[in-house]
Each structure stands twice: as structure tokens, then as C-alpha cells.
């Protein structure tokens, strides 16, 4: 069952979040809005019945890279007090309830999983999952390479 207004709301919210990324005056707000854009793009993947892509998008970009970005930028901004705490709590509750409601209406296309740990472990090392290992290797190489490039740039600047 899918509600007719959810795609329109999803499209409007992702465009609004993207506009907030560009128009925001504080970098931390822009990064938080970008994390919201990543989350909504994962919801779009879910609507396209691409469960694995949505999961990877959530795990890699929202859970990993956005958190990394937010922590790095928040640590450098040296903000100790929490600004607008009631608004933050209210938005968190609204986001949680809205996302839970939205997930209730998504098509349930997740295949049944096996409980046999040996067969699951054996299936993980099959060639079907080669792209996952490739993605992990690329991310790792990118992380190391970007750090080396940044160190070289800093040596040139200072």
C-alpha cells in the first residue's frame, strides 16, 4: 500500500534540503542538510525496490561519511553549547515518526533470509558480492590517497 502524496512530499523535501545546502550560512547546517539529502535519496531507492542500494547508501553515506563530516566540522567550530535544544528535539521526534510511518507503507520485497550461518558465510564470498569488496577497496584507497594529497598541499601552503 502506498499513499499518493508521499512521492510528492519526498520530491519536495529532497529539493528543499538541497536548496538549504547551497543557501545555508553555517557550514554545519549545510552538512546536516546534505545528510538529509542522502537519506531521502536512499528512500527514493527504496521506492524503486532497490533494497541493497538503499542499504548501502544509508550505511556508507549517512551512517559513515556524513557522520565523519559532521563530527569533523563540529569539532573545528568549537561550539560547546547546544543551540535551540527544544527545536532540535522536536525535529528529531518528527523525523523519527515520519520515517517510521513512511517505512510502513513501503513495499515489502525483502527476500526471506537463511538462518544457517555457514551458508550465509559461504554466500558472502561468492562472486555476486565482488562489487561490494571493490567498493570497500576503492573507499580505502580514496581515504589514504586524499590524506596524502592534503598533507602535500599543506606543506606547499605553509
Amino acid at each position, binding site marked *: 500500500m502506498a499513499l499518493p502524496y508521499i*512521492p510528492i512530499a*519526498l*520530491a519536495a523535501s*529532497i*529539493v528543499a534540503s*538541497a*536548496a538549504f*545546502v*547551497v543557501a*545555508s550560512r553555517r*557550514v554545519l547546517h*549545510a*552538512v546536516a542538510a*546534505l545528510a538529509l*539529502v*542522502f537519506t531521502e*535519496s536512499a528512500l*527514493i*531507492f527504496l*521506492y*524503486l*525496490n*532497490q533494497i*541493497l*542500494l538503499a542499504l*548501502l*547508501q544509508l550505511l*556508507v*553515506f549517512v551512517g559513515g*561519511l*556524513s557522520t*565523519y*563530516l559532521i563530527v*569533523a*566540522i563540529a569539532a*573545528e567550530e568549537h561550539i560547546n553549547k547546544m543551540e535551540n535544544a527544544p527545536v532540535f528535539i522536536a525535529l528529531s521526534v518528527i523525523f523519527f515518526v515520519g520515517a517510521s510511518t513512511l517505512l510502513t507503507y513501503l513495499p515489502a520485497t525483502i527476500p526471506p533470509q537463511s538462518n544457517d550461518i555457514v551458508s550465509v558465510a559461504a554466500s558472502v564470498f561468492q562472486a555476486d558480492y565482488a*562489487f561490494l569488496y*571493490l*567498493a570497500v577497496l*576503492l*573507499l580505502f584507497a*580514496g*581515504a589514504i*590517497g*586524499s*590524506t596524502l*594529497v*592534503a*598533507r602535500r*598541499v*599543506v606543506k*606547499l*601552503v*605553509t
Partner: protein
Amino acid sequence: MLDFLVLMGISLALFAIGIAGVATNKHFIIIMLSIELILVASMIAAVSYFSYLVSPGGTGIVLLISIWSVAAVEIITLVAFYVYMKHIGYDFDVTRLSKLKW
């Protein structure tokens, strides 16, 4: 499922916002985040194209992994640049980054 034209509209809107962000901002971080928006737009366009036009269950996972890699490396590079530039007290205005030429 979402309509294909709606998805293309979302992708086009994100791409336009990203291009506008790159063209109108001088802040280094915001420009990089705008490029991330362009990459998200390309992700949505690629997945919807493969889902609707190539095969019903297609993902275009190889193309998507290449986009993901570029986006992830960009975020990691962004954090590295941000932390180093903040530590040395360098300005984030890209019009003043002439020392980065080598």
C-alpha cells in the same frame, strides 16, 4: 513506484541546485557540498534509468559504484582539507586560494 519523469525532475532539480551552488558561492566547503549534490543527482538518474529503461530489476551497480567512489573520496578529501586549512588559519574563500597552484 515513483514515476520516471518525477525521478528525472528530481535529478534535474538537484543538478541545477548543485550547479547554482558552485557558480554562486565562494566558500570552499559549500562548493564541495554542491558537487556532492550533483553526484546525488547523477545517482538518482542512473538508478531510475536502469530500473525503468534497461531492465525491470536492474541496478546499474557498476556505474553506481563509480559514482559512489567519487562522492566518498570527495567527502574524505573535503574533511582533510577543512581540518588542515582550519588549523593553519587559511581563508576558505576560493578566490584567494592562489597558493594551491603548483
